[in-house]
């Protein structure tokens, strides 16, 4: 059992709502340092809200969130976020976009050192040829590579990803998944990954947390373990875990649907 000093995120009985609507209901999670955790659930279940809580955008009404044992506000420099819509500055080139976080946070480094770091991570996502291009000049897949490089360049202990591949086509998403896993493996970062793609969650994570329809709570916790890909049982194990999760996810999605239909006149 890991000690508390290994806990990256500790969510303790967190409840949150807008007005009268409860979005998150009594959530408790621990994320261990170095772990890749996926949050999955029907749309509107509050998974992105929970993630933005880790980024300090919203605060819990009840309960506490601690990151590496400190408050969310104190740990700004230890985390970085990748956004679904990329959120790149249109007026900055690829290089300048990756430099953004470094310029705000790493004032301890010289300009040259920051530039070198930016270059290194741009290189690692395969965009060296695009250094001086503006976002509108490159594809969506390449734009999200910039978003990933921007997050990795500040060398955060914790990476927050809000459906990073949700706006990409299937093939580009597949390519980026592979590259992201490689980067994460090389750098051993803690990752919290919000997605609505079950296979994405199962293939990438150490742990998958399935959330219920609003008000969001944690319904299931699965540790994907299918053995080596070459083994005979891999497919079987994968399917059985997927079926189980899908069974539960489906019932939550249907709950949302029934609720939406109930609201129609």
């Amino acid at each position, binding site marked *: 059992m890991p000690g508390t000093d290994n806990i990256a995120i500790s969510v303790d009985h967190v409840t949150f709502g807008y007005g009268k609507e409860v979005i998150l209901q009594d959530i408790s999670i621990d994320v261990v340092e170095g772990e890749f955790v996926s949050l999955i659930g029907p749309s509107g279940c509050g998974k992105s809200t929970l993630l933005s809580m880790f980024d300090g955008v919203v605060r819990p009404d009840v309960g506490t969130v601690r990151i590496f044992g400190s408050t969310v506000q104190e740990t*700004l420099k230890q985390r*970085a976020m990748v956004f679904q819509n990329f*959120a790149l500055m249109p007026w900055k080139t690829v290089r300048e976009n990756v430099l*953004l976080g470094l310029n*705000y946070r790493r004032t301890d480094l010289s300009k040259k050192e920051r530039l070198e770091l930016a270059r290194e991570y741009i290189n690692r996502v395969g965009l060296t040829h695009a250094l001086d291009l503006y976002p*509108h000049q490159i594809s969506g897949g390449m734009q999200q590579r910039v978003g990933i490089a921007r997050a990795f360049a500040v060398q955060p202990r914790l990476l927050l990803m809000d459906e990073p591949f949700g706006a990409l086509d299937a093939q580009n998403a597949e390519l980026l998944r592979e590259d992201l896993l490689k980067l994460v493996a090389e750098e051993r970062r803690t990752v919290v990954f919000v997605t609505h793609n079950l296979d994405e969650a199962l293939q990438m994570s150490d742990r998958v947390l399935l959330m219920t329809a609003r008000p969001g709570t944690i319904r299931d916790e699965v540790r994907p373990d299918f053995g080596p890909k070459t083994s005979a049982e891999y497919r079987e194990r994968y399917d059985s875990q997927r079926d189980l999760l899908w069974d539960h996810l489906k019932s939550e999605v249907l709950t949302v649907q029934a609720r939406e239909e109930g609201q129609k006149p």
Partner: protein
Amino acid sequence: MSTMTKPAPVSPGGPVRRPEPSWLKKNEKRWLPVVTVIGIFTAWEIAGNMNLWDPLFFSHPSVIWDGFLSLTTGPLLSDLRVTGLEFLLGMMIALGIGVPLGILLGTSKRLYWAFDPVVTALYSTPILVLTPLMVIWFGLGIGSKVANVAILAVFPVLINMMEGVRNTDGSLMRAAKSFGANGWAIQKDVIFPSVVPFFVTGLRLAIGKGMIAVVVGEYIAATEGIGYRIRADAEVFNTPRYLAGVLIMVVVSVIIMALIKVLERKLAPWRTPVLGE
């Protein structure tokens, strides 16, 4: 010779290239408007020489050219200098008030709610009708024209700055904050750059309005300036010189608008060029 049956014929000189389009074909967009202008002037000149109209009522290019020469050897330069000065001072006041006020109204929701209807109402009012009032307040000299330019040009600047700030993409602000930007960094890296295209649009509209303001101001009550000259020539039926004055205004506008386009490309190189630009 390649035949239809051979797959992917490769000629010894490399792949077969389509012939380069001719210079004329490639530059149609450039020379077609030139042809239009030359055509219009030619037809105009020919019609004028056929005495189709009374020279008191209208004129034609060669005679207008004489009028232009009489202006250049006469008051043209000093008129342009006065008009230019009035225009520049007025624009500086318009920018000096419009830019900060626009940012302020765009930043504060309350101020926006309080003032937007008034600003919009004033913007859609033909403020030019206030010209006589400006003359009463600031006299026949350059003061009334500067004021005229300022009150007309301030609104497009103000409204565009306001809308520009309000239209800043929230997800970009959130990303900047997430990466540790403080208040000033957000202004510098997110809000200002996203306002630039709005600013240039405001400036372009303001220049158009300002030029109308200065010329009409001079036209109504002045002792010098290009607007005054146009009116003075028209009143004594010096139609060719009057039309030469009008053409000078056209040329000046075209030059200024071209400069604005250059400025826009310099200030906002990230913008995808709009079709036809």
